[in-house]
């Protein structure tokens, strides 16, 4: 290449190839060749033979889906609030959506440990309402983990939705009103379908982030709820079983990646292209 721009691209290109592609290649090679299992995919076969491990994969993907569902239920009313809001209300929604981003994942996880813990307000409320029988902790429960992750990842879903809504033509809704549609019908047939590109983009981010959020999964799920990221961590830092760890790494990529790919395919639908 004698393109004059090439020298500018070279450092980043070398960094990508040497610092990223090469280590990932090593990891792939390692997952196939290291360890004592025979055959090219011996390590993978050995891992997948254990039903306990299969459940971890299922649990991880399911966790991602559960978080996406809960986050969507939370995001839609907020997005509609934004949609109906004037300038001031819209600004407030955007600022409040960005605010949690100022706190790191650890800080936000820490907040949920306080909230879900035995001395936390959620337990006190649930106890007062008679939902639970005496003080206990919501930590180490999947329900607690899903709620916490949904809150932590919510901005990732909400912000792309808001980005689409902010560009949406209000006259579309006026046209639907003139056609005689009520507010619920407008929401379900006009506003939300047109927001779908943002919603799907948000789903991808939320799913990917929730399914691989090692810190929150480990701190709230503890040793009782094991998902692939924590499983990977244990193989490396506790069991020192790097071959298995490298297999888990690729299974994590493949299992979450295929869901993300499927979601991304949705956005290729001709009805969705163009109104993003």
């Amino acid at each position, binding site marked *: 290449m004698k*393109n004059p*721009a090439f*020298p*500018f*691209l070279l*450092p*980043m290109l070398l*960094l*990508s190839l040497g*610092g*990223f592609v*090469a*280590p*990932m290649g*090593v*990891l792939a090679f390692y997952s196939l060749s290291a360890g004592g299992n025979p055959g090219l995919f011996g390590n993978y076969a050995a891992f997948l033979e254990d039903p306990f491990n299969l459940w971890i994969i299922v649990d991880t993907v399911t966790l991602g889906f559960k978080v996406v569902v809960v986050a969507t239920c*939370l995001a839609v*009313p*907020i997005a*509609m*609030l934004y949609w*109906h809001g004037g300038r001031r209300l819209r600004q407030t929604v955007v600022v*409040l959506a960005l*605010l*949690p981003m*100022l*706190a*790191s994942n*650890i800080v*936000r996880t*820490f*907040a949920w*440990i*306080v*909230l879900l*813990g035995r*001395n936390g*307000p959620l337990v006190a409320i649930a106890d007062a309402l008679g939902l639970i029988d005496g003080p206990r902790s919501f930590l180490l429960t999947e329900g607690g983990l899903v709620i916490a992750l949904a809150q932590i990842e*919510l*901005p990732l879903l909400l912000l792309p939705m808001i980005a689409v809504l902010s560009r949406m033509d209000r006259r579309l809704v006026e046209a639907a009103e003139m056609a005689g549609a*009520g*507010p*619920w019908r407008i*929401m379900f047939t006009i506003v939300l379908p047109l927001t779908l590109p943002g919603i799907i983009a948000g789903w991808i981010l939320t799913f*990917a982030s929730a399914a*691989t959020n090692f*810190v929150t999964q*480990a*701190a709230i799920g503890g040793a009782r709820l094991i998902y692939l*990221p924590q499983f*990977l*961590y244990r193989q*490396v*830092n506790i069991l020192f079983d*790097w071959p298995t760890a*490298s297999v888990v*790494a690729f299974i*994590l*990529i493949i299992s*979450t990646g295929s869901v993300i790919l499927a979601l991304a395919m949705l956005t290729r639908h001709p009805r969705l292209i163009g109104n993003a």
Partner: protein
Amino acid sequence: MRKSWTSHLSSISYGLFVYGLGALFLGFMVVPVLISLSMSFTSGQTLKFPPPGLSLRWYAALLDPVQSEIVQQAAWNTLQIAVFAVLASLVFAVPAAFGMARISARRANALEPLFLAPMVLPSLVYGLALLIAANLMHISPSIWLVVLANVVVFGPLMFRATSSIAQQLDPSLEDASSLLGASRWSTFRRVTLPLLAPGIYAGMFLVFIQSIENVSLPLFLAPAGTTILPLEMFAMLQDSLDPRIAAISGVLIAITVLVLVAVQRLTPFLRDQGRS
């Protein structure tokens, strides 16, 4: 036109959904972070919510050289890592963004996924890949390995922030500059670089914050004897629930806000630029 009672019911329920649930969930998005911040001012020994009284004792504890020696050391190490990661990202990502705007769209589209890929992958997986690759080359975990990992994984954030501006730059600005007598270097220094600055500052902010917060990369790559702040916080989160973690969170949020304000001050025309 008189509305029927069903249409009244539908607009009431819709209003409740949008303004009631919307406001409630908006609060739900923000409140946990506020709670964790409020915990940092507790006068109690534990993280009981609501706090029994207010005090700055846990912030004072952070400053205490005896009590918090490890935390302080960890903070210092982390700061160094973040600064080096920012500087190295500048070196790799800014020229790449500049060069990317100067190659054909076909080549740019081929190269961009390569540059952005490390950002998409779970950082836990990349941490393992780099650990195994380094181990094969007989490189043991070190601060520099953490810096490298941060540059590979978060440098793309700088690339993307700068590149999005570089792609939008009107090429006639550089043409105009050269016709007005500027050499290539003068054009770069006096026209291109100042116009890229908002993207560069935003990229610096993102890389800095991510390098301070990320757990997964130092988890595998930091040397055994070296403490790193996110690891220290993660450990506190998992076992002790030391109230100092709330104070550290408070300090981190304050730093984030300060850096964000600084970035916006540095780019006085950033906001108006986006509007036009």
